């Protein structure tokens, strides 16, 4: 099975090339996919944790998000 290809368009010459990835580039793609999935999961988890912490704080203070905005305005 051939490796995936990428499209390269040289904007100066207008020449479009379809280039088969090397084995090393295929391995790098697989690594990048894993890395992206890990980082995205970390960032999503942090965003969820931050939102939960914010909600808990508002709850403890007994005010709504809109009321907190008013205080900070």
């Amino acid at each position, binding site marked *: 099975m051939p490796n*995936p*290809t*990428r*499209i*390269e*368009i*040289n*904007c*100066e*010459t*207008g020449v*479009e090339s*379809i280039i088969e*990835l090397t084995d090393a580039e295929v391995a790098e*793609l*697989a690594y*990048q*996919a894993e890395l*992206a*999935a890990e*980082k*995205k999961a970390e*960032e*999503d988890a942090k*965003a969820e944790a931050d939102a939960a912490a914010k909600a808990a704080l508002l709850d403890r203070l007994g005010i709504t998000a809109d009321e907190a905005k008013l205080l900070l305005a």
Partner: protein
Amino acid sequence: MANTFELIASSTVGAGGASSIDFTSIPSTYTDLAIYLSARQSRSEVVSNTRIEFNGSSANLSCRYLQGTGSAAVSSSSASYLFAASPANTATANTFGNSYIYIPNYAGSTNKSVSWDAVTETNATGAEAYLVAGLWSNTAAITSIKLSSLSSDNFMQYSTAYLYGVKNA
């Protein structure tokens, strides 16, 4: 207000798909760049993410985005990637998502800001909309742009990308 859009280059993905669409040797003669992307990815999901990189570098990219999923609205950020959603291969067959990416002052010597709006398409739940404020913290002029899948999947056949130069913006 922009008053001149010139098509610099475009590409349509062929039968085998493509892991990326790379615009190279971008001339520095415009004030801004605009990209229209119509894409569908090969990943076995309803939605996947398309990323952008500049000058062959995947470093110093970040973004903050608003994401609408049809059932929820999310505000989030990434300290590592600049991306937005595209439909993937379990979305309704033959549907493609649209993106509009705007890069002002791409040839200047300041960090590069990027705005990106994107919608996916499917006749079921799971379609998404993204509004993205992105940053490439690099002062080099942008001379090449790479569009690819964040999950390293392929752009499917008939995906298209159009790169425009904007003058007198």
